[in-house]
Every structure is written in C-alpha cells, then in structure tokens.
C-alpha cells in the first residue's frame, strides 16, 4: 500500500501495547468528558448528548406530523366531511409534508449520523462539537416555533412545494407563507452545518487504519448524504430567499407578468427536492446494510457494489428533478432525458436490495425486531420503487401526476425506504444508549400493526388515483367511487398510528437513557466499533482498524481497547481531543484539541432563531437586535478556539508522536471552510442559472446589460483583492499586524469593487422591481454584498485577535480561513460581474 502521509504502517504493529495503563488516566478522561449538571445540559456539545437531543426532537416532529396525517385521514374518511374545514385542511396537509420532509426526515438521519458516527469511527467526538450543538438548537427552536404556527392558524397553506404564484403576495397575503420561507430557509442552514460536520468527521476522524474500504457502510452513506446536501440545499436556500424578497420588496423573480417565471421556482425547488428523497433514503439504506449484516450474522455481500451504488445514486439523483414537471409542457426531448435518468436511478437501488437479500441468504437470519423491520422495509420499498418506474414513464405520469397514485407511491418509498429502516435502527442501536433494550415481544406487535397498517392505508390510494382522485384535496364529492378506498385508507392509517403508539409505550417502559457507560451493550452481536465498550469520552483507547468488522475478526479487541492498549489511552494535553487522520488511509496526522461545552452556541442558536422569527412577524427592530446578538455569540464561541498551543507534539500511544496544531490543507478547519465555500458557490451558481433561465424564457423583458467594458475596472479591483488576501499568509511570518492589514485591505477593495458594480448597474436604469432580469441582477449584487459583509467581519475578527496577541506566528488557522474566504469573495464577485453582463447581451 502506498503511503498517503509518510506514516509508516509498521508502527501499527506496536499495538496492542503490553504495558498496564495507570488508573489515573481513565479518571482524567472521565473528568475531562464529564457529565453536565443542571443547566449545563443546555450547553453540552458532546455528540452523545447532542445526538440524542437531535434524534429525540426529530422523532417528536415525526409524531406531530403523523398526528396531522391522521387528522387528514379522518377528514377524508367519507365524502364532504367537515372535521377539518377547508382552510385548516390546507394548512394541515402543507404542514404534514413540510414537517415530515424538513423537520423529521433530514434531521433524523443527520441526528443518527451525529450520534453514531464518532462511535463507529472510534473518534472521541465529531470535529466541530459546537457547530453540532448550534445546528441542533437552531433546528429545535426554529422548528418548534414553526410548528406552533398551526395552533394559531398561521401555518403555511401553499403545499410543501410552495409553488408561486399561489404563494406570492397577491394570492397569499398573510404571514403564513413567510413562516414557511423564513422558517424552512433557516432550518436548511442548520442542515448544511450538520453536513459539513459529517463530511469532515467521516473523512478526517476515522480510527487509524480504517481505510476508506474498511469504513462501515453507514459512514459511506452519510458521506454521500452530506455531499448531496451541500450540493442540493443551496438551491432551496436561494429559492426561499428569492420568493421572500419577491413577497417583501416586489422583485418579480417568479411573476410572469413582469418578466419572471413561476417555472423558475419549480426548477429551483426540485433541483433540491428530488435529491432530497435520496438524501433521506441513502442514510437509511446505510443503516439497513449495517443491520442486515448483523441480523444475518454474516459480512455484507457486495460491500463495494453497495458503495458504488450509493455514489451512483448521488450522481444520478441530480439529473431527475424535472420528473416532477412532466406536465408543465416541457418538450418531449427534455422529458425523455429526465425519464431516462429517473429509470436509471432504480438500478443502484436494485443492487442494494439484492445485496441485502444475498446477505440474508448466506447467513442465518434472525427474526428479531431489527430483522423484522429490515424485511418489511425491503417489501415496502421495492413496491414503491416499482410504482416509481411507472411514474418515470412520461405518458403514464401524465395520468398519475398529482393524483392519489403519487401519494401512494411516495409513501411506499419514504416509509419503506426511511421510516422502517429508522425503526429497525431504533431497535438495533437503542441498546447502545439505553440501560435496557426494547421489548422483543412488543416489537412483533409494533411491526405487525405498522406493516399491515401501512399497506392498508396506502395500497388503496393507488386505486383512488387511477379513479381520478387528485392530491391535496380537503374533500371529495360522493358518487365517484372514491368512498371505499378512502375509508379503507383511513382505517389503515389509524392502524399504523396504533403501531407507533405501541412503540411509544415500549419506549416509556424500557428506554432509560445512559449515554456513555451502563448501556445494554451489544445485544444483537454487531461487528463494528460502535459496540466497543465506551463512556462519554468514547472508547478508552482508539483501536487500529484492520478489517470492516473488527469485533468479529478480533474477539480480544474490546478487552484490549478497554485496557487502553491502543491509541490515545489518555488525554495527552489535559483537554478534549481526538486523532485526526488522513482521508484515504486514515493515517494519524495530528491531535485535534476540541472545544468543550459552552453557552455560546446555544445563545447563537436562540438569537438566530429569534432573528428569523422576528423577521417573519415583521418585528424588525427585534430582528436586528437579535441578529447582532447572534453574530456576537458566534464570535464569542469562536474566540476561545484556535489558541496558541503550549504543547507542540505529543505521544498518542506506543511512542508515536504527532503535532497538536496543523494549518493549511491538512487541517480540519481548512476542509470545513472549503466545503462552506462550495455551499456558497452553489447558491451563487443557482442564482446565475436563474438569470440564464429567465433570459431564455422571458426574452421580451430583457434589456441590454451595461457594456462589458465597464466591468474591466471592477475585475481589476477584485484581482487586487485576491492578491492582497494571498499575501496575508506570507505576511504572517513577518508580523500578525501586516497579515491582518492585508486581510482588511482585501475586504475593503472587494467592497469597493462591489460598489462600482452596483453603480454601473444602477446607472443603467434597470431597477430590481423593473423585471425578472433586474430582480436577479440585484439579487446577485445582494449575495455579493452578503459575502463582502462576512469578509469584513472576518477580517475585523482577525484584527481583534491580533491585537489581543492570539495570532501566533508563523501560521494560524484563523488567518488562513479568512484568507480563503476573501479569495472566494473576490472570485464570486468577478463571476457575477462578468456573467450578469454577458447573459442576454446579444439580444
């Protein structure tokens, strides 16, 4: 094997070590990673806590959205019922979809990642614990406030897809829609924060020796999942932003009468919305692959095939979005492409399903609780996949689209592809965090009711759809044959509900939270590292990984790990820390000193939520105060990080020494910043796409942009800004003050360039409210202004750190990351200035 970092793999042979580790080491680890007390539970950042909070909250949203679903089924049990009046029903179905997709499904799998990944990878924590805490609290507070809107009749009622012009100010004047746009837009930010955490966590904090091809399949799934979030979610963030701006300021992005186009929203929404389905499915499939192996008691058949299949799913899923738009009048050529991609995406799903079946076939499958849910999931998911092939056929979709056939299809896919795997996961991993496992006896009832109820509820909907029953109807007229299938569906839905209720009873009886020590342990006999004995600091020592199922291959491993005979059997620096390893071969690179509990991420989340909430209810003063406090809280939390190091290099076991501070592309901070810049780049790219889309669909409204010549001086300034930012790194060798001076100057020059760009456009007499073109051009300028404002803030932050002597020479991460951001800002500015002048210039 080629060396990735120059680390000598022969060093791994030093483990397990022979020596007896002193008892004090373990006590020190306990002290450093201690349990919170009282209020401190709010400020905990450790993944054992945040993961549980996160998963619990997501499950709460599942229950609440489920109740909304039952209300809908009650209303539709018979024609022309008045259990839910029209307006209420429209809010309820909008919330059911929105909450299930945005507040349950994505956060639930993200939460599972936060909870399980460090354990599976044998890291002490995720690389950015405070970011996890922030993402969780932002989601929990924002989500609960958003959900509460239904109790006061202010919930959004435009459908979870929020198509304008129905959701424009003209047709939805209330703040209901704003709740959706600001609430969901905000929660997406937290999803992205989680995704960054997961990517860096999976690629950089694996146990030494855990090469990519030895990584648990769930970690692969989470990696693909997180990358997909980074690429897909910017589209919906931009979409919600644009629609909110249209509603608040009248910029006509989606208004066809003023040179916008309602179809632009549909493209932006579904470019996010369809990958979203796989974003939900892949982690669940990853869980399935883990559980199937344990249930069968055999290694997963086709590990490499599954990994390839998941990556292929990720790619193909970005070519299927317009299959939600087959009835919008797209040309047959276009629909043909999306139809082909929609069919192709079934192939990797088929590979995964048959890998699971193959694994069950070679093993001795047990019909325990996780096993039942795994098998049920396969049946339901395959059924949904087959109806998926049907609706991928364009002519059939013309009939099925927006009918109850689709309602049936999507529930089969999502319940089979996500809910059942999640329940399997609950049963499988709860012994890892609870004193007792759940009841196997009750599980048979839970499974039976859920499986039967699910099929009774959703199978008849296929028929209702073929009978001509459209979706999103608060009632239906008698005499169309809809009565019987609807009544059966309602009965099934309540059976499903009963199954979930029984699960809650089981939870109440048997779930006793025991993060860290005292859990029920490996009751199903899994072979991966999360089943090592662990406490709040994770495992006593971090093992060398030589296979995919280390616990099956080395029965002594658990004992040796517990005795501290592997990496990092102590705290080397007296603080929280984990080993950062290389992305491919997981060779130890350095010791990351991790931030501990802090009230500031919590405060930042509360104030961020307050900012968005206040914007929604138009309390602008409160919004600005809240926003400023949020920024201060974030800066305050960062202030304690990236400190000058006292101990340069440490022994992480068996005399293997690594540094405790690394800068540049090897550092985890650099990776996170690069991913963040990809997110920002995607947002900007989608805005450029919007401009191109409107120019080709609304050419009648297009005005010639200012001449390209005007952009030359703008480009020149941005080039200077890039140059200045790049010198900041070199300047740090000389003096921190020179370095921050270069950063500040770069931010200032970037801002000046933006100012020139703005003046050039505003003197062209094209205003933001004039047309779709004007709206997008000024939206590009506004995005650039955001980037410039953040750049200035970051440069000032570095300056403040320099003044307080917190910028050590010759290299410093804060300086590096600010430099990266400044370079990106200028590059984005150049792109915007050029493209906005080129699009439609010929006409």
């Amino acid at each position, binding site marked *: 094997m080629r060396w990735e970092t120059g680390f000598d793999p022969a060093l791994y042979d030093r483990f397990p070590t022979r020596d007896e580790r002193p008892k004090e080491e373990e006590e020190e680890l306990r002290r450093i990673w201690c349990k919170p007390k009282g209020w401190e539970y709010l400020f905990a950042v450790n993944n054992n806590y945040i993961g549980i909070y996160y998963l619990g909250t997501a499950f709460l949203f599942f229950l609440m959205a489920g109740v909304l679903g039952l209300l809908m089924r009650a209303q539709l049990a018979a024609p022309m019922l008045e259990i839910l009046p029209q*307006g209420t029903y*429209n809010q309820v179905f909008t919330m059911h979809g929105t909450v299930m997709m945005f507040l349950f499904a994505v956060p639930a799998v993200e939460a599972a990642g936060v909870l399980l990944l460090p354990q599976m990878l044998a890291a002490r924590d995720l690389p950015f614990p405070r970011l996890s805490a922030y993402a969780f609290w932002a989601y929990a507070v924002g989500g609960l406030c958003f959900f509460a809107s239904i109790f006061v009749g202010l919930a959004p009622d*435009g*459908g979870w897809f929020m*198509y304008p012009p*129905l959701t424009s100010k003209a047709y939805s004047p209330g703040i209901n829609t704003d709740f959706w746009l600001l609430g969901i837009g905000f929660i997406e930010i937290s999803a992205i924060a989680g995704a960054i955490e997961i990517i860096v966590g999976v690629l950089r904090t694996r146990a030494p020796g855990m090469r990519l091809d030895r990584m648990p399949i769930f970690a692969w799934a989470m990696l693909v999942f997180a990358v997909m979030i980074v690429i897909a979610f910017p589209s919906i963030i931009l979409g919600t932003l644009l629609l909110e701006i249209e509603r608040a300021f009248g910029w006509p992005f989606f208004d*066809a009468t003023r040179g916008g186009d*309602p*179809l632009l929203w549909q493209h932006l929404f579904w470019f996010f919305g369809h990958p979203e389905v796989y974003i939900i499915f892949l982690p669940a499939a990853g869980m399935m692959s883990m559980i199937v192996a344990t249930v069968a008691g055999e290694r997963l*058949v*086709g590990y490499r*095939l599954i990994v390839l299949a998941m990556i292929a799913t990720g790619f193909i899923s970005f070519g299927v979005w317009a299959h939600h738009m087959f*009835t919008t*009048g797209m*040309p*047959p050529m276009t629909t*043909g492409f999306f*139809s*082909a991609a929609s*069919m192709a995406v*079934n*192939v990797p799903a*088929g590979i*995964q*399903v*048959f*890998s699971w*079946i*193959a*694994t*069950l*076939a*070679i093993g001795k*499958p047990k019909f325990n609780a996780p096993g039942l849910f795994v*098998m049920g999931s396969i*049946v339901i998911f*395959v059924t949904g996949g*087959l*109806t998926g*092939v049907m609706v*991928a*056929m*364009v*002519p*059939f979709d*013309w*009939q099925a*689209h*927006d009918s109850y056939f689709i309602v049936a299809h999507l529930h089969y896919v999502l319940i089979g592809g996500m809910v059942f795997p999640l329940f399997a996961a609950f049963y499988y991993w709860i012994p890892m965090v609870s004193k007792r496992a759940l009841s196997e006896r009750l599980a048979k009832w839970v499974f039976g009711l859920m499986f039967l109820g699910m099929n009774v509820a959703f199978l008849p909907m296929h*028929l209702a759809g073929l*009978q*001509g029953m*459209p979706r*999103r109807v*608060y009632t239906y*007229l008698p*005499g*169309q*044959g809809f009565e019987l299938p609807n009544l059966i569906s309602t009965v099934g839905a309540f059976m499903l509900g009963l199954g979930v209720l029984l699960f809650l009873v089981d939870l109440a009886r048997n779930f006793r939270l025991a993060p860290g020590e005292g859990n029920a342990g490996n009751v199903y006999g899994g072979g991966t590292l999360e089943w090592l004995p662990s406490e709040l600091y994770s495992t006593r020592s971090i093992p060398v990984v030589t296979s995919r199922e280390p616990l099956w291959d080395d029965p002594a491993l658990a004992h040796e790990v517990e005795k501290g005979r592997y990496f990092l059997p102590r705290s080397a620096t007296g603080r929280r820390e984990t080993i950062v390893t290389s992305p491919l071969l997981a060779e130890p690179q350095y010791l990351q000193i991790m931030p501990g509990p802090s009230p500031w991420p919590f405060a930042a989340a509360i104030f961020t939520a307050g900012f968005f909430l206040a914007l929604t209810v138009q309390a602008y003063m409160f919004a600005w105060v809240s926003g400023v406090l949020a920024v201060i809280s974030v800066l305050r939390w960062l202030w304690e990080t990236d400190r000058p190091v006292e101990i340069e290099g440490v022994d992480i076991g068996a005399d293997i020494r690594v540094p405790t501070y690394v800068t540049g592309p090897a550092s985890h901070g650099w990776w996170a910043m690069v991913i963040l810049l990809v997110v920002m780049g995607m947002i900007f790219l989608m805005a450029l796409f919007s401009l191109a889309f409107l120019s080709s669909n*609304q050419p009648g409204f297009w005005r010639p942009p200012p001449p390209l010549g005007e952009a030359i001086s703008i480009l020149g300034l941005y080039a200077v800004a890039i140059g200045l930012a790049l010198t900041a790194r070199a300047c740090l060798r000389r003096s921190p003050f020179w370095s921050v001076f270069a950063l500040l100057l770069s931010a200032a020059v970037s801002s000046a360039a933006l100012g020139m760009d703005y003046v050039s456009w505003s003197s062209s007499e094209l205003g933001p409210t004039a047309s779709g073109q004007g709206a997008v051009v000024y939206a590009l300028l506004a995005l650039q202004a955001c980037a410039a404002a953040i750049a200035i803030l970051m440069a000032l932050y570095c300056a403040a750190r320099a003044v307080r002597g917190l910028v050590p020479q010759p290299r410093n991460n804060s300086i590096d990351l600010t430099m990266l951001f400044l370079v990106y800002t200028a590059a984005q500015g150049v792109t915007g200035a050029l493209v906005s002048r080129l699009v439609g210039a010929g006409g």
Partner: protein
Amino acid sequence: MTERTLPSEGWPPAVLDPAGPYSEPVTLLAWVLLAGGTVILAIVLGALWIALRGSPRLKTRLGGEKAIWILGFAFPSVVLTGLLVWGLMLTSSLSAARVPEGAMRVKVIGEMWWWRVHYQDGQGRETLRDANELHIPIGQPVLLELEAADVIHSFWVPRLGGKMDMIPGRTNRLLIEADAPGIYKGQCAEYCGGPHALMGFVVVAHTPADFARWQASRLPSQGAGGEGLALFLSSGCAACHTIRGTPARGLAGPDLTHVGSRRTLGAGILPNNPGTMARWVADSQAIKPANRMPAYHQFSGEELQALTAYLVTLK
C-alpha cells in the same frame, strides 16, 4: 342530445377505462406496468423467501455477487431500457408538439376555482365564450390551449387523456379526443389554494350532428328576462357575469349566457336544477367555501325564485 345525468364513476377506474385515442395507449401502458410490477414484486418476494427459508442450495446461489449483478443490475437494466424506448415513442406520439389535421381548437383558462372556455375557429379566432363545460364532437381531435389567469392549475380528464398544467405566462397545448358520446368528468389537478378540491368540470362529447345542433343553439340570450333579469342587473350580478343579449357584461366570473343548459353548477360540483341554482345563488359559500362569489342572503324568497326562474331559462 346526450344523456342529462352525471355518470356514476369509479369502476372501472377512469384511467383504466379510456374513451379516446389519447388515453387508450396509456391505459395499455398502465396495464403492462401494473402487471410487470406485480411480477417483479413477486420475484423479489420469492428471493426474500428463499433467503429466509429456502434450501441451502438455492440460498448459496442467491448469496453472492453474481446474483446481485444478475438480479440487481442486468435484469432491471434490460427491463428499464425496453420501457424507456416504449415511453419515448409514446410520449412523442401523444404530445401536442405535432397537431393533427382538422383538429378543433379551444382555449381553456384556469381561474381560481373555475374554467373559462373560449371556442375558436380554424384560424384561431374566438367564436364563443362559455365556462366550466367543454363541448366536443366525437372522432375529432381537439387541441386545447391551456392558460392560467391567476395561479397554476392543471387540466385533467382522465378518460380522454393525461393532464397538462396551466401556468401563468405560458400557453400549454394538450390533445384530447372522445370516441363515443358521453359526459367525461374533469378536475383541476394542481393544488391552487382554497377550494381546489371543488374545481371540477365536464367534457360533453356529441355525435357530429348533435355537435352541429349544439353549436347552432349558442345564440345570445332570447330569454324573457322580466323580473329575474331586472334583479340580476340591479343586484350586482352583472358586475361579474356576462349574459350575451343583455346589458350584463361582467368578466370576473363565468359567462352565464347558457348557464341553464349546463350539466353542473359551481364548476362541476352540483347537478343543475332550479333547487341547486337557488341554493348556489343564496349561499354559494356554504357549498364551496372561499369561492369568489359572495353569498346573497339579502334576496327574499320570491326574489330568489324569480332570479332562479330566469337563470334556468338561459339554455
């Protein structure tokens, strides 16, 4: 004329009970897909059964990468490729990208929560305005030009063809054709807020002779008028509704010139008779909440009777 009652639908399901050349091939496709899907589901269930309970020999054959390649990759790839080719061919043959010779043209505009119907001649000139009911001759393709006045709607008559969205700022085209005379239910398929659930309509297909007779009967109002018309004009109805041949020229609501001859009221939701007409006028909000027509509680019983008596004569 064709029969006057609304058909009781539901069985066979509309999508599987085609009534024209633009729905029939899709029905065949649907049956093939349903049958094929069932077979494949059975194969997967069989494989799962073997995995759980099968003989060791079968389990070994199923439990390797070869089985995954065959069942999970090769088999779906072949089936899907075949389906894709069929789908592409069918898509282009059914789409309105090519309009057949002699197609009748009608513009249908979706409104919150009803339908404007503008009949056109061969040159695309408007010949007649109506609402919530589309009359077509059998055996002749009909090119629908679909537009939206406010938000997105979708035109769907399952027995005659697939659906097509009506999007503000665009004109989408859809072909339908009926083989036999009859009444075909239609429904808005794109969620359009409020009473989207109650935005229906009917397509009435006539024999060519009947269709010609129907066309000839579309003359401006010859109705007696009298007290009913006077009330109509004095109570504000005319602000939104047109009755050709009278001073009523409102454009916001459905054209009522032939409202008496429609099969339904309230956009496809009530049978049309004097009783339902009176109920609709007096309190349409109770029947179709949030629709754009205010309730007219102010009419006395006699007034309501006179107005209804007039409206039902508008054949």
